[in-house]
């Protein structure tokens, strides 16, 4: 009887100990800096995150800088360092979807050139909201010199000629192929006469310098 009482007491004691054990996941929040949700209008938004010190290039990789979608699935991006190594440039490999929330993660494992780690992981949530896209159309005079839309069987051939500063061009959010000599092309399917094709151009630093709609004839 006494032996049984001791066993019950020890079970209760173990349970109390379990309750008192610190919950590590709740404490993890202290290591994360979650920024306010940003509204973006560009489905190919290139994020540039500036730091006060130059960063160590080898610490910028898929596991330290990445974007995930609402379902915590990884979204393909390219993360590179700027020329001065003080900015991380995150370029999407495909277009973000409208009204979905994405999170850009910057792990605290990235280091400065001097080997100093980031104090907290940064999470930047963002939502693509195209509705306000036309409110602030960015344009740099002469960024795009010529745009041609040519309807072919099964696809509309889009050809764009840029100036020397443009680094990438999209047509309806599809990355165009660089053909050389400032010329970009792509075939777009499913377009009919009267449909819009939005041409957007970006500089190497991710700045959008051109956005304009063209109609398919």
């Amino acid at each position: 009887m006494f032996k049984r009482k001791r066993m019950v007491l020890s079970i209760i004691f173990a349970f109390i100990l379990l309750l008192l054990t610190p919950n590590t996941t709740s404490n993890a929040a202290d290591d994360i800096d979650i920024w306010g949700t940003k509204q973006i209008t560009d489905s190919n938004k290139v994020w540039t995150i500036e730091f006060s010190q130059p960063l160590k290039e080898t610490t910028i990789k898929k596991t330290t800088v990445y974007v995930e979608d609402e379902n915590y699935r990884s979204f393909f991006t390219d993360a590179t360092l700027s020329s001065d190594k003080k900015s991380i440039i995150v370029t999407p490999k495909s277009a973000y979807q409208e009204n979905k929330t994405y999170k850009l993660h910057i792990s605290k494992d990235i280091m400065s050139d001097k080997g100093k780690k980031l104090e907290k992981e940064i999470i930047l949530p963002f939502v693509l909201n195209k509705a306000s896209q036309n409110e602030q159309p960015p344009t740099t005079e002469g960024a795009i010199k010529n745009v041609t839309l040519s309807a072919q069987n099964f696809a509309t051939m889009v050809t764009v000629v840029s100036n020397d500063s443009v680094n990438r061009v999209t047509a309806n959010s599809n990355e165009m192929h660089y053909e050389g000599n400032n010329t970009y092309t792509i075939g777009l399917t499913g377009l009919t006469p009267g449909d819009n094709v939005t041409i957007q151009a970006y500089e190497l630093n991710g700045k959008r310098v051109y956005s304009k709609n063209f109609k398919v004839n």
Partner: protein
Amino acid sequence: MRLYRKKVKNYRQLFVIVAALLIISTIVFPTKSNANIINYPDTDYLDVSSPIVLEFDRPIVWDTSIPHYSGWSTGTIYGPNTAHHGIALTEISTGTPILVAISMQISGKKLIITPAPGPAWDKNKEYKLTITDHIVIDSSSAHVLPSYVSTSTPIVYSIGTGFLTFKDLMSGSSPEINSIIQDYTPRNIRITAPERYIQELNIIHKRQALVQNSTTESVTNLDISINDKAHENPNGDIKTLVVTPKMNGTPLQPAKILDNLNTVPNRGNHVYDFGFTRLPDTSAFDFEVILYDDNGDPLDIRIVKVPLETNTTTTIKQRDRYRFAYRTFTLYDLLNKPRDLQTLLDENRMDEIKVRVVQQ
């Protein structure tokens, strides 16, 4: 009147004799036929995975009176190309039957000839199929091939295993699709994305700068990461890597060439680096990177722009992903799934996508 009746009688006798002779001739010489070949190889773009098909307007069987085909009623005959009687596949450039195993099969109205793939029956070559005997006949033993077919007057079909580009197929004032669709259904038109070998390109372009009252030269470094393991040829088939800096489509400097890469041991990822000086500082320029196979045909091409920037140093890292590299679709697949067609066009230029046909 009597004379008239006699004439009629003579004509009637003559008619009976002629008719009898005709009936006898059709029994003794069963070679007359109104058979037609309704489908035959007539293309420059045959996929080497496709059999060569002759389709007749009636069911056919092997002519078992020819010793080579005795014992076969229908079914498949295997053997070296050179051993088959009355039929041979020849590469036009050599003029001799190619040394390849061939299976020949009869299926209803079709004679299906399937060469084994390999160096002898390969892409981008020209062949001819020569038939010198009536190897197949119809169920009443009548000939189905043209009656003149013999060793001295063979029937010859020209077959090319080249390709069209998707751009040729779809664009221009007279796109090829208009003629191809006459002979091949969308399911028989095959569209293949190119193999991709170049994994990543990294460029650092350091512009001229004024350092202690003297001007430094611009210096440019280009790293090219290549995976030389190919889907089709795991032993690798890249022979030459050519890098040319260009502006306005014109080379700025002589191309830098790395040759005999196919002798590099250990297939897999390799990084090749190149250095340049005196490339433009005040305008954009391009790097054109081309990989060639040992026939001198381009395998993978990438053109990267070094844009004009105000920064002293421009850094470019280009890493492309290809979901559909070396994947083949039928035109039917792409019409049925426009998203796949768009992905194909997103990943490849129209003139990089190869189009071939199959006969079945």
